[in-house]
């Protein structure tokens, strides 16, 4: 049963299995295990980013294509919901319309970009997506009449999801059963389903062809697979998944703006998560996203303390200033591309094999 749910792609190493299971359980019971707004906020972010990072891994790890437009698709999903709710009011119908619209736009755009840049060279694609994504971000921040510009859009969500809504009287293990809890589980279940769908995708015959294209495009073509078609299909699918992750974050945050969805910083975060977690395996996305967001939320506090403790030494406090944590992640990123190209998951799997 479990094996079927995981599409036969088991974690493959006892340590990895334990870690993934622990992350799953922690996320499943996060509101009860770690009560408090901040920790639930972190847990929801982890759920959403697991989907986002896994969808990026579909492209980078499985197909071997580097795209810098992933946040654009993420943003299209988020803005789809935001605009639909702004126009139609807070209802599930609006969320559905926004989600469908966002996904369709994202897929269409991915198809166009893929068709005119994937034919030439993989490296072309990286540059074209970088250019298109930044133009898109500029466009969104300038069309402030529609998108709210740099300020973004604030909107209401269906009242079932509001913290003020009481689902039941009393408390369960000391946690209020309110709309916020329901919203968390909405995000969690959606993320879980999307993740399992992607796991199914990469372990299907289609996923196998993608891997073949990654390993040797020329040979895959010679065997009779149309490489361009498969590359474009992977791009379109991963764009659709990213847009769905965008829908989730739009509903969760009740706010959509360039900083939370479109910024280049998020693109770099995704890249770091995929590489550190492990390219070419879906579990890498789980571990990468969890580690990164935990570090982002809690490590910076630690670095702040360390920075103050060393304030008498020149330069050092600047280097471990909490704002500079990206510096150390960058170093970690470069080192892991050199020495552990398969990331944490690859290391764990390799040891057991």
């Amino acid at each position, binding site marked *: 049963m479990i094996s079927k749910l995981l599409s036969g792609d088991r974690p493959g190493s006892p340590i990895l299995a334990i870690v993934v299971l622990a992350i799953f359980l922690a996320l499943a019971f996060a509101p009860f295990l770690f009560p408090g707004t901040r920790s639930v906020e972190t847990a929801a972010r982890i759920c959403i980013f697991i989907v986002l990072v896994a969808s990026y891994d579909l492209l980078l790890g499985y197909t071997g294509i*580097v795209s810098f437009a992933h946040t654009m698709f993420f943003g299209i999903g988020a803005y789809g919901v935001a605009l639909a709710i702004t126009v139609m009011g807070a209802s599930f119908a609006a969320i559905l319309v926004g989600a469908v619209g966002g996904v369709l736009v994202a897929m269409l755009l991915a198809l166009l970009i893929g068709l005119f840049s994937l034919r030439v060279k*993989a490296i072309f694609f990286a540059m074209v997506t970088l250019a298109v994504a930044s133009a898109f971000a*500029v*466009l969104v921040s300038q069309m402030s009449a529609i998108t709210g510009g740099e300020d973004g859009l604030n909107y209401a969500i269906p009242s079932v999801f509001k913290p003020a809504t009481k689902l039941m009287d009393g408390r369960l293990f000391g946690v209020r059963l309110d709309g916020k809890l329901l919203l968390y589980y909405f995000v969690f279940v959606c993320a879980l389903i999307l993740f399992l769908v992607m796991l199914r995708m990469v372990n299907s015959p289609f996923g196998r062809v993608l891997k073949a294209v990654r390993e040797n495009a020329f040979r895959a073509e010679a065997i009779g697979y149309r490489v361009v078609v498969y590359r474009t299909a992977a791009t379109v699918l991963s764009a659709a998944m990213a847009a769905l992750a965008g829908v989730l974050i739009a509903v969760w945050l009740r706010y959509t703006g360039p900083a939370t969805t479109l910024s280049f910083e998020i693109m*770099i975060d995704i890249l770091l998560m995929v590489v550190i977690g492990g390219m070419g395996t879906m579990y890498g996305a789980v571990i990468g996203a969890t580690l990164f967001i935990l570090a982002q939320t809690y490590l910076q506090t630690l670095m702040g303390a360390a920075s103050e403790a060393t304030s008498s030494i020149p330069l050092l406090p600047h280097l471990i*200033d909490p704002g500079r944590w990206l510096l150390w992640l*960058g170093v970690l*990123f*470069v080192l892991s591309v050199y020495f552990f*190209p398969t990331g944490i998951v690859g290391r764990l799997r390799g040891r057991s094999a």
Partner: protein
Amino acid sequence: MSDAAIRPKIERASLAESLKTRAPLALVPALALVGFLAIGSFPTWVTLTVAGLAMGMMIFIMASGLTLVFGLMDVINFGHGAFVTVGAFVGFTVLAWLAGWTSDPSILINLTAVFLAILASMAVTGLLGYAFERTIVMPVYGSHLKQILVTMGGLIIAQQLIIVIWGPDAIHLSRPEALQGSFIFGTALVEKYRLLAVVVGLILFLAMSYVLNRTKIGLLVRAGVENGEMVEALGYRIGRLFLGVFMTGSALAGLGGVMWGLYQETITAHMGSEIMVLVFIVVIIGGLGSVGGCFIGAMLVGLLSNYAAFLMPKFALVSTIVLMVAVLMWRPQGLYPVVKAK
């Protein structure tokens, strides 16, 4: 017996063929003409055209190194923007030290200060290019995926180090006295600094064309672009050649950074990655690895951005994307694709 008998016969390209290769050259004047028709006012058009050419020249300075490095060694450096930023910061630091010189009314002393700033930043970025090539790029030759990832990582590290050294805030610095203000030609206003940028860019382009087409080093570089293994087999160390090109490219990025910084009069740690978008568009339009294509692409992007910024301000960056798409639909490999001997 006459010499004519043994003279080799050189096939002349037919008119259609030579038109095909020269066609991109007509694009720049064509765009300028279209811009003139769309704008309608001559003085405005002159101002915008000079601004566009200046911007194009600066982008060309930054992009030429990138495209050469790609052509020669098949390495695309996503961290190229870091050299632009470092160049700008070093240049601004030097100019701040020479504050007495830049506020001097004499144009000669002003230009000396700018020249020293450019020299310092080119030296620093050249050395940085050496370090970057040896530590970051060299271990990943041959794998595009890893190159993109690793150079991106290098960009993150460099950007953060800039913040550590120079602080997170934007730095403002006004241009030297003699470079402020504008010339007035009839009714058209032309900023002095833009004129200087056009001149510097043109000199650089001519110098580069000369080195590439008329010197032995240029010959080796061009041969390396076409077939690196063959050059190596003939006894030249292509690795060293490549290192030299990489350092030159980085130094040029530094030069571009100083000029761009003086153009904007404000620099931030993120300016490099912002301008890289335009640089990539230019490199794609020109054809990866082609210096001539890069020059035309830079002019097109510079002119179009300025016309578009005047005609429909919100779509300036989008217009360059449209240009890129249009060029790729006409020539999927860019204006002047580099032919690799396989």
